[in-house]
């Protein structure tokens, strides 16, 4: 066991020496891989931020019922009674037109515009909480629109659902991009290791002649591949980090304008770790393929 560990340590340190011994080549390799990984990583982060936003702003499917402008308090009571007797809804609340105006004034910074209107343009409204049963939304909508003094029925989760399906589409796009670039990464390490094997051809031949096992010969190349992958992953992470920083600076005036706290978050540490491990694994795999393909052609037998 100790021998085995020592052998690994030796292969590892030899690889580190080789990696840092040709800094320009290593840097170029790592940058290429980092750029290839940064693209899908950046898109993924953008998507998950959007998803987080969508989740924050669409808690449960809701149906808004807007009454006509001439609705009286009797009509309001009528609808309240109808809603109470309706099965399958989780709850509802009445939003009088004055209250709606107030909250609009206080929340969105449109106070000046509203003050300029001179009268309250908003209707009375009911917000019906449809519970988790999103499928019933359509039947609720038709039911409500048949009631008297109802001007309009809005299913509020519509935009969230649309966004959701857009995001799902985006996730597929990211997945496809990531797969394509993962293949590119494998190809890059494959070729890098191939060149490395070519330059170390003599060493491999001699080592085989004096009793080196395939494992001994492969080890430094596998380490090199993993190292290139891992460093590439780290570079990608840093690139995305830098891009997000710039983005957030640019977003700040926008968030002040709309009064919503909007910052893009980077990967959390487990996700970062997974990214690094994934890049390392891809590098290893590319190296492994290359070693399988090229080392055995040097077998003296």
């Amino acid at each position, binding site marked *: 066991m100790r*021998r085995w560990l*020592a*052998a690994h340590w*030796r292969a590892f340190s030899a690889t580190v020496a080789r990696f840092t011994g040709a800094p320009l080549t290593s840097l170029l390799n790592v940058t290429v891989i980092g750029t290839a990984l940064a693209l899908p990583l950046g898109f993924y982060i953008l998507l998950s931020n959007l998803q987080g936003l969508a989740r924050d702003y669409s808690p449960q499917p809701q149906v808004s019922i807007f009454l006509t402008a001439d609705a009286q308090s009797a009509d309001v009571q009528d609808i309240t009674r109808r809603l109470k007797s309706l099965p399958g809804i989780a709850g509802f609340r009445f939003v009088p037109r004055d209250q709606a105006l107030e909250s609009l004034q206080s929340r969105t910074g449109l106070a000046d515009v509203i003050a300029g209107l001179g009268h309250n343009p908003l209707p009375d409204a009911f917000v019906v909480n449809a519970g988790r049963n999103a499928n019933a939304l359509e039947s609720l909508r038709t039911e409500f629109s048949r009631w008297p003094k109802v001007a309009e029925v809005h299913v509020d989760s519509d935009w969230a659902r649309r966004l959701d399906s857009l995001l799902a589409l985006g996730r597929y796009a990211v997945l496809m991009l990531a797969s394509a670039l993962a293949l590119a990464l494998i190809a890059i390490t494959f070729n890098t290791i191939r060149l490395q094997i070519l330059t170390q051809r*003599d*060493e491999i*031949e*001699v*080592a*085989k*002649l*004096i*009793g*080196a*096992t*395939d494992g*001994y010969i492969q080890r430094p190349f596998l380490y090199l591949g993993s190292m290139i992958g891992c460093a590439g992953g780290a570079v990608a992470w840093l690139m995305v980090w830098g891009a997000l920083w710039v983005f957030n600076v640019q977003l700040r005036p926008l968030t002040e304008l709309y009064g919503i706290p909007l910052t893009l978050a980077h990967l959390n540490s487990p996700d970062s770790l997974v990214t690094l491990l994934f890049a390392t694994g891809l590098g290893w795999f590319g190296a492994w393929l290359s070693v399988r393909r090229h080392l055995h052609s040097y*077998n*003296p*037998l």
Partner: protein
Amino acid sequence: MTQIILSGVHKRYPGGHEALANISLAIEAGELVFVIGHSGAGKSTLLKLMAAIERPSTGSVIVNGQNIGTLRTRGIPFLRRHLGLVFQDHKLLFDRSVIDNVLLPLDINGFDRREGARRARAALDKVGLLYKEKAQPITLSGGEQQRLCIARAIVHRPAILLADEPTGNLDADYASEIGALFRDFNQVGVTVVLATHDMQLAARLNPRLIEVRAGRLAA
């Protein structure tokens, strides 16, 4: 103990060239054997068979109890660890120092660094190159490079030393130095099989001679 046994060995290369035909011989542990013959007679092929660099087309080659013809590829490294190989073209690695070249077999055998360095120095001392341990092999003369190759071949104390034309590129003085080294190793019990066309060397060391002529053993 019989260490190397060849029986009814043929070696044909793709294309039909027959390098060896019907070779049968046995080499005892501790023997000093010279394989002699003209260039192209099949000396190198014979040694390659013993080192598991080639496999016989027919017949059996048994080295240290292992049948080279049927030995699995992954078993070959472990057979080679009992062998020391000396090449005419030295096959040194020019990207590392003299001592690192000698350390390579010990690395492969999994020696720890300190013990390895001790043994490597002992081997370099034996071939008279200890004072050049930090030098680059490219700066060594032909004779020194050959001695370095020998140090690398014996550093892990193999039971069998196989040398293919070790004095091929050297002048007479160097050649006799190298010959003396092989005799020394043989005297401490190492089986030495040496392929050469240098009859002077053979005359000096008085080994058992095996002559190969056009791929066959000469009677």
